[in-house]
């Protein structure tokens, strides 16, 4: 089977306007999570990773008129532009795959300066397509919190059957009132910046970000990370509660390993979902133990970004790729003592280490789970 390469990428988040700025912030231990006042919320607000709108508009003015685009559109357009800048791509042949859970949902009944149908994901996708002039209609994936990673897997699967050779995958989601009020009703917002896998974790922090990546079967200079296995599996257990046995996550890991022809013992690094809810993190620890990944260094990036929903699995996929390229393990921010019933090997300090393979996982509402295996090509560039 042909190699599917993860190439140029970009992350637009409170930690920075490029992947390198984001990684620099992560290495410095900076978090995008800050307390934001919100009268809807019991404590008068919550910790969230929110992008400064005027800073964003300022950055966006380099490529367009910020007044004509929503905040999310500006973020996703900037992410896409950055990937396109670095490559000579023929946009009449390049696929565009968009991932978002809620898009511009706050426009649904209050469209502000925009038309009402701008709340639709179809509209969002069309904005991105037309801004750059992609010839083909975008593919839109909306599959809860695995969306961003699933979109990359879909790119790979289509490339492997010859539907196209290059795909730009773009993901984005906002910290909307819509989503904040919903998680508040679930009482799953953390009173502090979220603490994945920790003893005293008490829920998620929300975050907003956009990211983009070029997925391709053509070798280009400076990229040698392949996506060698990927699988999704539904828990078939509960639509909002994770399976106690980690069934779907375990199955997706097994299936991804099988495709990659690697064994669990060959995985050098595991980038978990780690939302910091009691049940999610416990479920992941159970699944990782069943999959014999107890000793693999593992982190969650949610302490840096919060949960960026449909963008999270793409951002974390990009960060996993750079961990491999840089041979660096980044600490799981806000970790305060293991708070899951099964042992896992949380990364607690920055470490330089030769890394060849990594596993990225994600889980979401609707019982969905995703596992992806990234591998460094030994004869590639670095």
């Amino acid at each position: 089977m042909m190699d599917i390469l993860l190439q140029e990428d970009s992350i637009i988040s409170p930690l920075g306007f490029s992947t390198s700025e984001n990684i620099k912030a992560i290495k410095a231990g900076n978090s995008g999570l800050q307390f934001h006042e919100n009268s809807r919320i019991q404590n008068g607000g919550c910790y969230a990773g929110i992008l400064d709108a005027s800073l964003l508009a300022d950055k966006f003015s380099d490529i367009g008129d910020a007044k004509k685009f929503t905040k999310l559109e500006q973020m996703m357009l900037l992410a896409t532009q950055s990937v396109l800048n670095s490559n000579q791509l023929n946009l009449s042949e390049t696929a565009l795959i968009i991932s978002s859970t809620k898009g511009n949902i706050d426009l649904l009944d209050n469209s502000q300066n925009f038309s009402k149908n701008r709340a639709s994901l179809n509209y969002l996708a069309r904005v991105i397509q037309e801004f750059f002039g992609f010839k083909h209609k975008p593919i839109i994936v909306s599959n809860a919190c695995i969306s961003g990673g699933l979109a990359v897997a879909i790119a790979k699967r289509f490339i492997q059957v010859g539907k196209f050779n290059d795909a730009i995958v773009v993901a984005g989601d906002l910290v909307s009132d819509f989503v904040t009020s919903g998680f508040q009703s679930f009482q799953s917002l953390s009173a502090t910046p979220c603490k994945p896998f920790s003893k005293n974790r008490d829920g998620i922090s929300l975050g907003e970000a956009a990211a983009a990546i070029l997925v391709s079967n053509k070798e280009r200079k400076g990229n040698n990370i392949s996506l060698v296995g990927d699988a999704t599996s539904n828990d078939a257990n509960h639509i909002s509660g994770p399976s106690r046995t980690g069934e779907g996550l375990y199955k997706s890991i097994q299936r991804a390993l099988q495709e990659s022809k690697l064994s669990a013992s060959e995985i050098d690094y595991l980038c978990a979902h780690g939302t910091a809810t009691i049940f999610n993190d416990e479920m992941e620890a159970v699944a990782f133990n069943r999959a014999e990944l107890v000793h693999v260094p593992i982190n969650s990036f949610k302490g840096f970004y919060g949960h960026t929903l449909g963008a999270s699995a793409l951002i974390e996929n990009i960060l996993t790729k750079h961990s491999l390229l840089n041979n660096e393990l980044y600490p799981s921010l806000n970790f305060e003592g293991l708070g899951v019933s099964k042992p896992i090997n949380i990364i607690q300090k920055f470490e330089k280490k030769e890394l060849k393979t990594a596993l990225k996982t994600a889980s979401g509402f609707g019982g969905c789970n995703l596992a992806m295996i990234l591998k460094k090509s030994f004869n590639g560039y670095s």
Partner: protein
Amino acid sequence: MDIARKHFITNSIRIKNGKIFLNKETILSLDPKIDFSQFLKDAYKQLALKYPKYHKMDSLCKLGVLGSTILLRDQDFTENTALVFSNASSSHDIDIKHKQSMESIVSPAVFVYTLPNIVLGEISIKHKLQSENVFFIEDQFNADLLVDYSETLLKSGKASSVVCGWIELKNDQYDVLLCLVSNNGEIPFTREKLEELYRFDNE
């Protein structure tokens, strides 16, 4: 070599305008003027779903569980039968209800349905599927995407069979086509055949 011909549309279900068709045959015909929630109740009763959880679901999930249950009755499928669904309006039907509730008290029982792929979760629970899932958003029915993606799952061995289709709900107007795609059957799994099944909604 035309590998696509190896797979067939084994079974199909169409739900629209108060009617339900199984393989183009009418199995339920209600007055198209009855309101949508009554249609969902009557269809449940008359088609003997016997799945009390149904009543707790949002309308999009009810349509999906209703459709998939009739589609998969007496059919061979496994836990690796994938779900490849699409629509235009995502979960906006319930999103609007959640938005309205934001003025007063937000209910987690409503919020939990505000993602289009929740219907895949409900169908997976009902039929014990631990398979590949995806929910695509399209501005209109796109047979190409459904066929192409289902084929990638079948050819790569990621799925043994696939339930694919369209499940649109907007302003109480519903439009559903679900197909079971497997190695069995006579109708080749092609864009043309899928289009034809989608266009068919009256005898």
